[in-house]
């Protein structure tokens, strides 16, 4: 323990005292409610045959774009740069979920350049803003990291909060990797959510990947470890490991994830990619997600899902520039081909449209 432990322990005592104090008050204030304690899900025997959704090939991105009014158009419509210009640009960035701090720093740089007369027209301003933003996003490799000849399978781990789209992204990645000629095994490490294993099985059937599942409520680390062992013995190139969604503020579940990563490498395999799946609708909390998940599992890339909706996913700009985690894949629709490599220029253009 370090020197600062003294106030900390005191704090601990104080908090413990407080917590039980209010607990008592609260309990005596109300009658204790009968709370049904629902345990983790019991194993499911029957696998419901779920009809594969018809995969449409509509260009949803185009639809999203056409429905949005352009801040850029409005800025360019003026003959000069004035207060409204700055406000509109700031609000455009904010509306795309880039965040206050990032928006202000991006515009701060430009305000200085306008003051120094380096920029004088709205068109130059827009170009400079786009240029600054792209320059912050280029220079990182967005390839999914696959190492040959490591004496075991590559392991790609999918992590993220509940409902971000981990399982679906995993299914699509599997199909794409198989199309590239790699052999893939899915490890159904989401043993918590009801029927998550079934969902992954459906994807395995669709893509032709093998799958290793454990009992629902079982230890995700052991399921993934078994998956790696099984892949190794069958000479499979790649293990795609699914994990249960978890909120980054839940310490115990983050600890579980840390263990998953540790145990995954106990066998012959190597974790060569940890993909954090982030929903494009996510706001400023996305940055916190990236921080916490990286701290627990050393995230190597972001998968930005659901970008075909009206959300812009601007938080990944903050994640990439502030935390240095590259955005690798983007989900633009429901079909397998709609999961594509992230293109910074298109992404930035879309932010302003």
């Amino acid at each position: 323990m370090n020197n600062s432990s003294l106030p900390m322990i005191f704090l601990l005592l104080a908090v413990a005292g407080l917590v039980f104090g209010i607990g008592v008050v609260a309990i005596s204030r109300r009658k204790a409610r009968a709370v049904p304690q629902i345990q983790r899900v019991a194993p499911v025997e029957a696998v419901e045959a779920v009809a594969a959704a018809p995969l449409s090939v509509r260009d949803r991105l185009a639809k999203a774009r056409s429905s949005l009014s352009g801040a850029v158009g409005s800025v360019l419509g003026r003959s000069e740069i004035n207060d409204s210009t700055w406000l509109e640009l700031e609000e455009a960035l904010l509306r795309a979920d880039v965040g206050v701090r990032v928006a202000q720093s991006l515009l701060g740089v430009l305000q200085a350049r306008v003051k120094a007369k380096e920029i004088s027209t709205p068109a130059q301003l827009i170009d400079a803003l786009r240029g600054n933003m792209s320059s912050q996003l280029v220079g990182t490799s967005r390839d999914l990291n696959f190492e040959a000849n490591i004496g075991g399978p590559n392991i790609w781990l999918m992590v993220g909060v509940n409902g971000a789209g981990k399982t679906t992204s995993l299914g699509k990645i599997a199909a794409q990797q198989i199309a590239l000629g790699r052999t893939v095994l899915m490890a159904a490490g989401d043993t918590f959510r009801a029927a998550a294993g079934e969902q992954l099985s459906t994807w395995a059937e669709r893509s032709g990947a093998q799958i290793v599942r454990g009992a629902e409520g079982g230890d995700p680390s052991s399921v993934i470890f078994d998956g790696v062992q099984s892949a190794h013995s069958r000479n499979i190139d790649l293990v795609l490991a699914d994990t249960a969604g978890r909120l980054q503020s839940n310490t115990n579940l983050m600890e579980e994830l840390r263990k998953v990563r540790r145990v995954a490498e106990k066998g012959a395999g190597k974790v060569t990619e940890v993909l954090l799946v982030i929903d494009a609708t996510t706001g400023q909390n996305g940055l916190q997600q990236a921080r916490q998940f990286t701290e627990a599992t050393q995230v190597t890339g972001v998968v930005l899902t659901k970008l075909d909706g009206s959300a812009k996913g601007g938080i990944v700009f903050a994640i990439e520039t502030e935390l240095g985690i590259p955005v690798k894949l983007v989900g633009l629709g429901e079909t397998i081909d709609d999961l594509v490599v992230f293109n910074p220029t298109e992404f930035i253009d879309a932010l302003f449209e």
Partner: protein
Amino acid sequence: MFDNLSDRLGGVFKRLRGKGRLTQADVDEVMGEIRTALLEADVNVGVVRNVIERIRVQAVGTQVSEALDPGQQIIKIVNAELIAMLGGETLKITYASHPPTVVLMAGLQGSGKTTSAAKLAAWFRSQGRNPLLVGADLQRPAAVEQLKVLGAQIGVPVFSIAGDPVATAAAGLAEAQRLGRDVLIVDTAGRLAIDAEMMQQVADISKVVSPHYTFLVVDAMTGQDAVTVAKAFDETLAISGVILSKLDGDARGGAALSVKEVIGKPIAFAATGEKIDAFEQFHPDRMASRILGMGDVLTLIEQAEKVFEKDQAEATAAKLMDGEFTLDDFLDQLQQLKKMGSLSSVMGMLPGLPKEAKDAQISDDMVKVTEAIIRSMTPEERRKPEIINGSRRTRIAKGSGTQVSDVNKLVKQFSEMQKMMKRMGGGSGGGSGGGKGKKGGGRGGLGAMFGGAPGGGPGGLPSGDIDLAAALGSRLPPR
């Protein structure tokens, strides 16, 4: 983490001290801070603009006195405004005279519809109703399977047929009538608000079941897009209320404010955890503090309520107030505390804690070390820590893998806490008298402990909630 609003405003007002009245420029600066705080909480840009205007009107001309902290005054205004915006009319469920009462769930992919549908079913059950769940999400693989598993957990039947979601919903309604279920909850597939085809499908589902309530499920982590989504769904389905999901995370949840403001429909329920029963009616006041990043005492209380055994807690409280609190009891408390989640998240919910305390990375390892030290003591030492002498100290340190000085610190702080608690217990006017006297003392005492507020007398205040909140944190604005 983001700074909370009171920290932000604290800095501004330090400079404004001594001024008689806020000038326009001062107000602008203050408004700027409020704007940033709201934006960082993911409140929609357009909504922020409106809020700020309303707050500005109230803030201009606010008297800045030495006695009253101007920051507190502004926070009070902001908080009241947010509560007013979030609250207003609450959604009251009235059951259909010809059952079943039909509830339709809608939302984006991954917002938490299926889980919320099951939680809502459990809630209806707790209200003495007999719901039927209908799985009309035939899009996502195994979504119906998920609903079936959840339904089995809560003892609510689940109906679904493969094929067409609209037909499934219609058949579900017939099934509810046949079985005599009085509530029907229809889960639908997640869809993007801009996907015309899918929006038409959910409109068709709505047409065949004619829902009494249509809930939009919104993820508490949603950013600026919440407004677009809410508008689109409201236009298609005429939303009756919102279910805010994943509120157990650390997102500020500004989306709640945006959605409420834009579609004007109440936030009916909030999902606050992974367990089925972690689902409750929405509390605008808590959400306001949360958006402003100012602690969430009431949620903390509820968490404590769930975790703590009533009898045990009362016994411990009595011991504490009488000064009979031993290290064993403290160890118990730590165990209970651990059940409430990480220490830092608990600390985060406490208003009025000094900023340094919140910033100090309180790791859960600290709890472990403390536990280890106490566990290395003999039962007698735990009861009477004063008997711990040099050789006992060395033994305890060795047993717990710590230094003698750590053991010293723990023992010293424990005795200090004991003294403090004794004082508080003694001051409650009645000491070991009736249970009521004890409770009152606990409240006032804890208030005094956190922030130096005078012990809040429970008598004159209208309700338990307000009473508690006022006593617990002097920095929590009075309501």
